[in-house]
């Protein structure tokens, strides 16, 4: 196996990131941070001798005086929720939810920017020069062992809707972030990769056969996602309502039907 050595960085943030990685590995090592193992790590990373020493010392303090989750007695209740503890848990929840919503906002912005940037390119460039990590949603699903029906069921879309998304017949600016995220999760790709895929030019279905006496054409305009949902007779009513309730991405223009 190739041994990868990280080069020392001069930048403070990178040093901090490197230190965090080293401390994480020290923590993960067996038998763990202690006086016995400390010299080995200091020899390997002398620039972090002080941090490693502090880490090992306090690790030992926590080992003996703090809680060690590995040594909790069997059968003990995992939640000891008296009033004070409950208050602290709620404080922690507040912090956790702040992180979640900040991340959601950042991701929504990233996705919108990625889609808008892709769509803003000239049609010529959009059809030939742009590539995304994904060639087809269905193929991407297959790579992670997910058949087409399983993909469809997993993300809760109809055949028609999934095919339209796969063929990029839906206006990418109207696709809710939640739908993009669900598809990304299902095919184990980054949200940005799926968003970039949707911004590519529309395509025919793979294996489609056409009459030879007429040149096949694609629809002139991509369909609004919400219109596609509204007009889909095969979606369950409850699922249709869920999809229609999703927030419209910022910057997308409401369709005529939307405003009815």
């Amino acid at each position: 196996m190739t041994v990868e050595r990280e080069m020392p960085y001069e930048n403070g943030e990178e040093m901090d990131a490197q230190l965090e990685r080293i401390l994480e590995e020290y923590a993960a090592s067996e038998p763990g941070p202690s006086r016995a193992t400390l010299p080995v790590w200091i020899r390997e990373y002398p620039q972090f001798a002080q941090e490693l020493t502090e880490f090992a010392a306090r690790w030992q303090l926590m080992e003996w005086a703090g809680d060690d989750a590995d040594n909790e007695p069997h059968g003990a209740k995992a939640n000891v929720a008296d009033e004070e503890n409950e208050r602290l848990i709620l404080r922690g929840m507040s912090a956790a939810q702040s992180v979640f919503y900040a991340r959601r906002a950042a991701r929504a912005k990233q996705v919108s920017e990625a889609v808008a940037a892709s769509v803003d390119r000239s049609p010529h460039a959009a059809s030939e020069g742009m590539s995304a990590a994904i060639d087809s949603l269905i193929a991407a699903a297959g790579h992670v062992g997910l058949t087409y029906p399983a993909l469809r069921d997993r993300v809760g879309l109809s055949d028609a809707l999934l095919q339209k998304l796969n063929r990029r017949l839906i206006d990418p600016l109207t696709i809710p972030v939640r739908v993009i995220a669900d598809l990304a999760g299902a095919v184990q790709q980054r949200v940005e990769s799926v968003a970039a895929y949707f911004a590519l030019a529309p395509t025919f279905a793979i294996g489609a056969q056409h009459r030879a006496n007429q040149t096949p054409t694609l629809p002139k305009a991509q369909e609004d996602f919400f219109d596609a949902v509204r007009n889909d007779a095969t979606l369950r009513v409850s699922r249709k309502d869920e999809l229609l309730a999703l927030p419209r991405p910022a910057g997308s223009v409401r369709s005529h039907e939307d405003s009815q």
Partner: protein
Amino acid sequence: MAQEEIRSLARPLTRRTKSGMLYARPPEVEAQLQSLLRATVDEQLVWAKLQDQESPQFVKDECLVYLIHEAGLADDDARFSALTRQLLGRCTPTITRSLRNLGVAAPDVEDALSDVVSEMISAILSDDGKGDFYQVRFGKALRSRILKVHARYFRRQKRARREVAFGGNPKGEAENEEAVPLEERVAAPGDIAGDFENRLLIRGALAAIKDSRHREAFVLQNYDGWQVESIDPLEPTISGHFGKTPRTIRTWISTAERDVAEWRVAQLRDEELPT
């Protein structure tokens, strides 16, 4: 067929060690993940709320982390909140107790807890592998995070005080070297490794040491074999770690021993009380 496909959907970890090896979940964590991923989301939430660790469906912390990560990827705030509530229910007492033992002042514990949780959740939700360690050994990952937050807190406190920290011993620093003999010293770790009851005893004794620095010095000497001082410059010492003279460290340890002795006397007195 759908069930077979779901089995393959546990995302692999992407973080690597310094030698290039991918992090790997322990087999028992992988096995439980496969069971969980065959279940519906509603079933996962029901199992996540189980508190009895003896139950075969009790969800391991590492698996709970995985589910939280997935909820983040799916942008499902309700599921994220429900699962995170369970995780925090389990680990908040650990976090706060650890912060106090490390010497974080009572008014600052909540802020420090908030920092630990924010950083932990950020790592868990990230898609670049930063949270992988939490899926491998949650307890160790959490402890590392607590120590990082504490180190930052400690540096801030030092800057704020702008002096060499000293406190907790009203008698002053250098004069009282006379070691107070313990009436009954807590057993050395070699005698009690893996014995949960004795661990509780040790924790009780250590909690009785009033000053967190004295507690730390006491633990390092008695439980990890650190020397107070050494002629070998490469040997980690308690004196070097704290940046204090060996004499000061010995005073600290003596004070800690006195605190433990007083605690032990109180324990014995309580045991002798008629029922």
